[in-house]
C-alpha cells in the first residue's frame, strides 16, 4: 500500500486539463488520486470476501470427520508364518504386512544406498527388534495400483519384493523402488506395536 501512495502522480486525460475542469474535486490534492486508493481498498476487501466464502466450498470436499474417524486399523500378527504376507485394509487402501525370512532381510540390507532411487536403509523402514515385520502401504507410488507379490503365486519382480503390473515398477524386500516409473518407495505408515503380536496402523 505504502509504495502505491508514494508513487508519482499519473497523468490521465482528466488531469492533463486545467485543475478547474475537475468538477468533482477528486484531484485537488497533490499525489495520486484518492480514487486509486479507494479502488485498491475495495478490490482487496472483495478478494478477501470471495476467499472467505469460497473456502467452505473447497474444504467441504476434503475428508470429512467420519472418514477421518476411521483412520486407524488393528492387525493381528500371530497367525502369519515366516515368509508369509497378509493384506489389511487401512483408510480404504491395502496395507502389506510381510513376515520376512532372514534371507530376505539380508538381501535388503546388502544393497548399497547409492543404488537406490529413494535412498533409505532397511533399518529405517522397520521397527528396532521387529526387523522381521515389514509393514508398507500397498499402493504403487507411481499411479496408485496395488502391486503383486502378496500371494506365493504372484510375480514378485526382479528384486523379490513386489511388482506393479500397471506400469512395471519393481520393489525389493524392503519395499523400496528399484526399477520402473515409480519415484518413491512404498510408504511406511505410522504404526505401533500394541503387543508382540499386534499392531495399530494409523
Amino acid at each position, binding site marked *: 500500500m505504502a509504495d502505491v501512495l508514494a508513487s508519482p502522480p499519473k497523468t490521465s486525460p482528466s488531469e492533463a486539463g486545467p485543475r478547474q475542469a475537475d468538477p468533482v474535486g477528486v484531484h485537488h490534492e497533490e499525489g495520486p488520486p484518492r480514487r486509486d486508493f479507494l479502488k485498491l481498498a475495495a478490490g482487496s476487501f472483495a478478494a478477501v470476501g470471495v476467499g472467505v466464502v469460497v473456502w467452505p466450498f473447497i474444504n467441504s*470436499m476434503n475428508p470429512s470427520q467420519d472418514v477421518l474417524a476411521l483412520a486407524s486399523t488393528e492387525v493381528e500378527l500371530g497367525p502369519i508364518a515366516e515368509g508369509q504376507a497378509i493384506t489389511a485394509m487401512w483408510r480404504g*487402501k491395502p496395507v502389506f504386512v510381510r513376515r520376512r525370512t532372514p534371507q530376505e532381510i539380508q538381501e535388503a540390507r546388502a544393497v548399497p544406498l547409492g543404488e537406490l532411487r529413494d535412498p533409505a536403509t532397511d533399518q529405517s523402514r522397520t521397527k528396532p527388534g521387529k526387523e522381521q515385520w515389514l509393514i508398507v502401504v500397498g499402493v504403487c507410488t*507411481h499411479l496408485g495400483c*496395488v502391486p503383486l507379490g502378496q500371494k506365493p503365486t504372484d510375480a514378485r519382480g526382479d528384486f523379490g519384493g513386489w511388482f506393479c503390473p500397471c506400469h*512395471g515398477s519393481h520393489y525389493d524386500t524392503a519395499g523400496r523402488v528399484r526399477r520402473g516409473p515409480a519415484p518413491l518407495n512404498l510408504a511406511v505408515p505410522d504404526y505401533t506395536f500394541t503387543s508382540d503380536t499386534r499392531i495399530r496402523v494409523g
Partner: protein
Amino acid sequence: MPEGLHESDVKNPVLRWVDQRLPVISMVQREYGTFPTPRNFNYFWNFGALAMISLAIMIATGVVLSMQYTANTHMAFDSVERIMRDVNYGWLLRYIHANGASMFFIVVYIHIWRNLNYGSYKTPRELLFMIGVVIFILMMATAFMGYVLPWGQMSFWGATVITNLFSAIPVVGQSIVTWLWGGFSVDNPTLNRFFSLHFLLPFVITGVVFLHIAALHITGSNNPLGIEPKGPQDTIPFHPYYTSKDSIGIVVYLLVFALLVFFAPNMLGHADNYIPANPLVTPAHIVPEWYFLPFYAILRAVPNKLGGVVLMGGALVVLFFLPWLDSSPVRSMRFRPIAKWAFLLFTANFFVLMWVGGKPAEAPYILIAQVCTAYYFAYFLVILPFLSKFERPLPLPESISRAVLSHRGGGPLPAGATAKPMEKA
C-alpha cells in the same frame, strides 16, 4: 409500432409479437437461415453439427439414466445391472449413452482433424479454435467421470490412476489428491462428487458450445480451399443447402450409431468393468477407454512420473498455441506440398499412439510410444514453425467460385459469375 421494439419480418402475428420483444426468430433466421456460408464445403464440415447432435443425445439419455442410478459404492454396480435387466428399455438407454460417448469422440476427433487439415485454427479463427480445445478438454473430464460411475474394476482403477496423476505435482500433489478423493483412496465420497460433476459438466459444455458458435458466426466458416469468400458469388445461404447436407451426415451418423448399439454394444468397452470394483486387487492390465489411449501412451512413454504427466498435459496445452506456432498464411493443406505430408504422418502417428496405448508397458511398445510422442510434439513445435518460414506454397485460386466452377470441366465462365480478388470487399 410502439417504441423500443425490434423490427421484425415475421408475418404470423403471434410469432411477430414474440419476435418484436425477443428476436429469437430473427436470430435463427439470420444465423441458420440466410447465413452466408462458403459454397464449397465437403462432408468434413458436417462434424460440427454431428457433435451438437451427440451432445443432445448424451444429455437426453443421461438425464433418464440418472433417474435410475444410485451413486453409492455399495449400490452403484447393482443399480447399473438393474438398469440393464429390469428398467424398461434401460439396456437401450445405457447402450446409447455408453456408445454415445464413443460416437461423440469419433465425431470430435474428425472435427479436430478437419480443423488441422484445412488450417481453420488460423487468423481470424484463433479464439474459436481455442474455445473448441476447451470443449474437448471438458469432454474428456466428463467422459472420464462417467466411466467411473458403474463402479466396475476399470471404473475404480481408472479413477485411481487418473486422480493419482495430480500426485506428481511437487509439494502439494498429495494434498490435492486427498482433496479430489475426499478421503484417502477412491471411495464413496469420490463416487458421489464424480456423479455430481458428471451431471453438471455437460451443461457447462453446452454453454461453451454456444460461445464456440457465437465466435464462429463472427468470422464465418473456413472452407476446404482455406480462402475467404470474396462476395455473394462465393457463398450460399445455410438453409436449405447446408441443412440438407448436414441431414445426410446425420443419417449416416445414426446408422453407424445404431450398428454399434444393436450389434456390438460392448465392442468398445472393457470386460473387466463387469467385475465389481475391488480396492484390493488391481486388474493385470489397466487400459482407459479407446479415446484416451493416445494420451495414455504419451503418459507411459516417459520413464519419469512428473515428466509423463507434464507431457500428457502438454499434448493438449500445445494446441492452444497452434495458431501462433503455424504462422504460414496458407490455411489449407491442399496448397502446402510439404506440410501436407507432415500432417498425414501426424495423423498416422496419432493412430499408432492409440494402438500402443492399449498395449502393456513393456518393450518394444515403450520405444514405439517414445518415438511417436517425439513426433507428436515435433509436428507442432518444430515442423510447423519451420515450414511456416521455408515452405513454398502452391498458388491459391483466385476465389472460391472460380475454383469450384472450373472443377466442372472448365471452359469460360459466365460473365459476372466470379469476382476478381479485391473487387468486392
